[in-house]
């Protein structure tokens, strides 16, 4: 229930417009995935740059 409440607050803060009765459904189906997005910010990514598949993969194939 706490997780659902947190998700509800988070969605409201983001300006998400969905019927309240759907929040429980969302919490069950996608709640852990949404919560897991925060974990990305805790990663030590050093000086890595964003991935560019259209550049990186052909470069590697050529190299």
């Amino acid at each position, binding site marked *: 229930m706490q997780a659902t409440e947190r998700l509800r607050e988070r969605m409201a803060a*983001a300006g998400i417009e969905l019927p309240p009765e759907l929040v429980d459904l969302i919490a069950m189906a996608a709640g852990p995935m949404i919560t897991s*997005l925060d*974990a990305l910010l805790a990663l030590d990514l050093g000086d890595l740059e*964003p991935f560019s*598949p259209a550049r990186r993969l052909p470069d*590697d*194939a*050529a190299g």
Partner: protein
Amino acid sequence: MTARLAELSVAEVRVVLAGREATAVEITEACLEALAARNPRVRAFLTVTADDALAAARTADAALARGDAGPLAGVPIGVKDLLAVRGVARTNGSAAFVGDPPAAADAGAVARLRAAGAVIVGTTHLHELAFGPTGVNPAFGTPANPWAAGRVPGGSSSGSGAAVAARLVPAALGTDTGGSIRIPASLCGVTGLKPTYGRVTRAGVTPLAWTLDHVGPLTRSVEDAALLLGVLAGHDPADPTSARVPVPDYAALLDRSLRGVRIGVPRDFACAIVDPEVARAFEAALGELGHAGATVGDVTIPSLDHAGPALGALILGEARSALAPLLGARWERVSVELRIYLELGKLVTAEQYLAAQRLRTRLYDEMRAALARVDLLVTPATVLAAPLLDELQVRVGDTQMGTLEAICRLSGPFNLTGLPALAVPCGFTGDGRPIGLQLVGRPFAEAEVLAAGHAYQRATDWHLRRPAG
């Protein structure tokens, strides 16, 4: 004879036509008869373009008679209704697009198929706007899983997977953003190839997530996938992400031994959460690959543990950005499910999105390092066989998890890195649901991936089995 013609593989169509055992028109008519008889039950096709298909078949027969036919002359093919097909009103699997005018031109991949002589017989069902891995689509109808009533076909290329499994067409096009070719291939017991990012043009394809979207074939065998990729691959100036990398003759490179091929299993991740029946089939497949001459060992790719959140951030963020403007005033006509996903895109912050993109660089570096020590990575294609249609959560081994997360767990990482990934059938559960094996290679090394898959299919007969009815 008609039933037999309708069930030919791509390679078999080529042999039959070359031997003048049948004409392209006869094969197309057989295919259209099969569609008329069985598509109402399978629900794989949204639109059947019979007149156009027969015209293309007549053109193929003329080319065959002249001796200048293309490599796919007379081969009936379905196209996921996310790609533009000239003369067909594209729905993207959404009520929001009903009433749109027919496409004036083909998507790049469809144009390549036509130029090679293929017969486009219609467009196939999908998860709405390709945003979901189950194929469940209440508005347009969910394709039946030909192996398992009441189970999802897998998506988002659900109709393409079901159509090939049900022997309605020998091949179909799909798209793959988090596994949408390999998932229906795995759950429906067919072969599905997600080529390297940029290998096949995405021009004329409705986007879901630009940095993750791929186009590729679903077929009954690896040999057929190689034949299609040989036509589909190549640079297209109409797609800014299309790669200028030489295209080998994939079909000619299939018959290579697995002797000396090194296969790596990212076991810590790939086997951590997996259904016991899938795990058994996977281990048996590794045994087959070893028996065929490959050396099989474990590799470690630590960042796979973060692939799920990264994929979520990227798909939610990019799809919101791509689809909200495309939908515009039609927003109110999308399903509740899609509306939820698009609204959830607002939850992804710029910082999270960029962290996901930076994590991709690390994940790619780790996979490349692993692929310096081995030639291929191998995992189950999905951690479970087809779940029930209405399951929001599933139990996978000892783990309870969301169905969407479970289905995409092993396919999504290779959308993040863009590496070529092939799903092939490798067994069945005790109640008859297909199980898939995934083979992954270095950038643009589809030839090596396909050769390994072909070697596996020469040693096994899972891909030859067909569902009842």
